[in-house]
């Protein structure tokens, strides 16, 4: 006769077996806890960082601002290139920080992705307009050539039209000094 799952209960060795699951679980918890503290790079970094901008010429996305061509990035002054859209919620969140960057002297050129002129104008009236120029990228063509996988993204471009830095996601308050520093470095 065997007892199936009921090994003789009173022996201390068998009692110790019941603690094995606890030990395994503690091991898992320690590992998972450690891994949660590790920064995780889930974003797709552009292969274009360090490369010159692709050739492009975009029509104006709104009557208020002129369009953009590659030449505008080759005037010797570093600039920010902000890829955004009026339908993009994080873009609303980053709008005040873009204003802040502009007030600190950064020149910001925008590219509006898959947008309509009236929506762009509404957005700018509502959340502010820190841009000197805004180009319209109706099919995400330039966005893809930049190696950007979503909106918003912000690129730091040096005076010769080379991509120096890519910021993925909305610009938060604590990103502002970092972006200003990158602009300084790009001089």
């Amino acid at each position: 006769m065997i007892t199936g799952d009921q090994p003789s209960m009173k022996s201390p060795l068998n009692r110790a077996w019941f603690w094995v699951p606890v030990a395994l679980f503690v091991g898992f918890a320690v590992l998972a806890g450690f891994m949660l503290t590790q920064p995780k790079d889930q974003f797709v970094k552009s292969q274009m960082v360090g490369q010159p901008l692709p050739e492009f010429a975009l029509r104006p996305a709104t009557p208020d601002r002129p369009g953009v061509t590659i030449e505008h990035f080759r005037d010797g002054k570093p600039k920010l290139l902000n890829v955004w859209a009026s339908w993009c919620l994080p873009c609303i969140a980053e709008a005040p920080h873009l204003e802040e960057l502009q007030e600190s002297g950064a020149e910001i050129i925008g590219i509006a992705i898959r947008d309509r002129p009236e929506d762009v104008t509404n957005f700018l009236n509502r959340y502010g307009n820190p841009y000197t120029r805004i180009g319209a990228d109706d099919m995400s063509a330039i966005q893809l050539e930049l190696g950007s996988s979503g909106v918003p993204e912000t690129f730091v471009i040096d005076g010769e039209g080379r991509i120096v830095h890519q910021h993925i996601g909305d610009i938060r308050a604590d990103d502002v000094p970092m972006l200003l520093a990158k602009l300084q470095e790009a001089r």
Partner: protein
Amino acid sequence: MIAEIGHAALWLAAALAVLQMASGALALRQSGEGGNFAVYARPAAVVQAFLAIIAFASLLYSFAITDLSVKLVATNSHSMKPFIYKLTGTWGNHEGSMLLWVAVLAASGGLLAFAERRLPERTMSATLAVQGFVAIGFYVFLLLSSNPFERLPVPAVEGIGLNPLLQDIGLAVHPPTLYVGYVGLSVAFSLAMGALITRQVNPNFAKVMRPWVLGAWVFLTLGITAGSYWAYYELGWGGWWFWDPVENASLMPWLAATALLHSVSVLAARDALRTWTIMLGVVAFSMSMLGTFLVRSGVLTSVHAFAVDPERGTLLLALLGLYIGGSLVIFAMRASSIAEGTRFTATSREGALVFNNVMLSAILAIVLLGTLYPLLTEAFDVRVSVGPPYYNPAGAIFAIPMFMVMAVGPLLRWKDDSPARIQPQLAILGSIALLIIALVVVLGDYPLLPILGLALAGALGVAALLPLKGRKLSRVPVATWGMVLAHFGVAVSLFGMASEGAFSQERLAAVAPGGVEQLGDWQIELTSVDPVSGPNWTAIEAQIAVSRAGAEPTILSPQARNFWAPAQATSESALLTTWDGQLYAVIGDAAGVGPDGQQRWQLRVWWKPFVTFIWYGGLLIALGGVVSIAGRVRVDLKQRKAARIRGERREDEAALAGEARGEPSGGPLPQPAE
């Protein structure tokens, strides 16, 4: 306003969970059955269930009307989205799915409190206290770190869509189904803890636990089946199981629940496997919570990309530590005090069940190890991906003996049996398996595992029906029919898997419109490729005429879709289902211009013989579970009715005796305590 009502309902539900836990726990400290505090536990659980459902309904409403002042709606929905996907968007995101999780938890707790009257009140109090304790943690998680009702300071102009992969009717059903299964196991967990704490691990407790396990298990089975089919046609990769962490997160509770289901039946029928049942009850729900943690914390990378938030992950891990860690410690401390159950020999039905429970647990361990292994190596900065080359052979080592014992087990008698008694049946099953192996090996050169799978499926399919042999079918208990159906379903599903693995054919070619390809006895002609558009996407759609052996061609129209808001490309496969399999077609990117100057397209086609049997089998398994529940509930209701009639008769007799002594009947009776 509606969102605020939902938010308030959630807070009230959380408060009631505290009351439920406190009253249940205080009742335990009082001597005797129940006590004053116990009366609050049941109503608290029931009202809490209503409040949690109101909260979920509020969120559903916000999504239905696309209330863009609610942050969750603005970030996950879009006014242009088809209405049905607005609704499914409710649980297609972190906060909404956690709210659904909590609502199902509260609902199952409420149902338990409302309907279950067979357990001793002390055990019931402990069970409800545990259920309340679990609920509190998840309310805290939801309210503090994942509030689904958060408003935006300024309403958004437009929502930012939903992952287009998730815009599919498969998503409308499979996650909620899985959640009901996941969370239904919380009741099994609470009952196991309640029985362990009050030392009531006995057949009576097992009978109460069994329908809950069965119910959760049916939903898990359906959810996994639907999820597998969803991934199969929606991802466009031609596979039906990818050993992705999120899939594994649903498979692990199912494995544990399957083992628990069998163990609890043995405890109910034979008063054996007491420790096993408690252990599996703890493990099954632990796997549900672990799965939720792995999916929701983003600690593992998966094709099912979910938002990553370390704060949420940490909070979930703390809850896991509290519930899994706590219950395992209580188990370790109390397990040795569980009295030994009835004894049995190795060659008995119990023996076979114990063997298969060990096999199921081993497979569970393999899946768990494979799922967590990348986490372990990433701690040392090595990125690995664990896939079929590990899972398939490692799982098969335990699955093959399991299927063999599964074929034989139901033929054995309880307690003690001799293999000699069932020798004729064993000979039949063995020769079926060998015959299939011989046949397949003669047919062609196929991989080992699918061949074994085909042989086992054949033997198991016959074995599953053998318990009906020599019995009058109308007198077979309903629960036995359930077992027969479920076991036969396993055979059907295994046949589908093995057939897909052995006989699938694939063709990948660059084809210009007008081009013809041959796949097996199928003729495939790409007639045209045109742009089409839908409410929130544009696509190129191929028209493919497929025909077999000169029959009338059928037109398949696979698409390569581009969604906007958010921009994402997906592949819409086109399927042709016949009785003996499926033709699966996917159109890919433009593949340049051919020598004749025509634009060519990447066309990928699979012929998968009997692949549909995988999901038919899954449905049969679930149906077996439903039949089993129906059988148990019917028996239970009969017994209750019999008990009531006995009680009434006794009362009548007492009243008659009273009248005979000249006492007035219907005087003030002491009210029975809840």
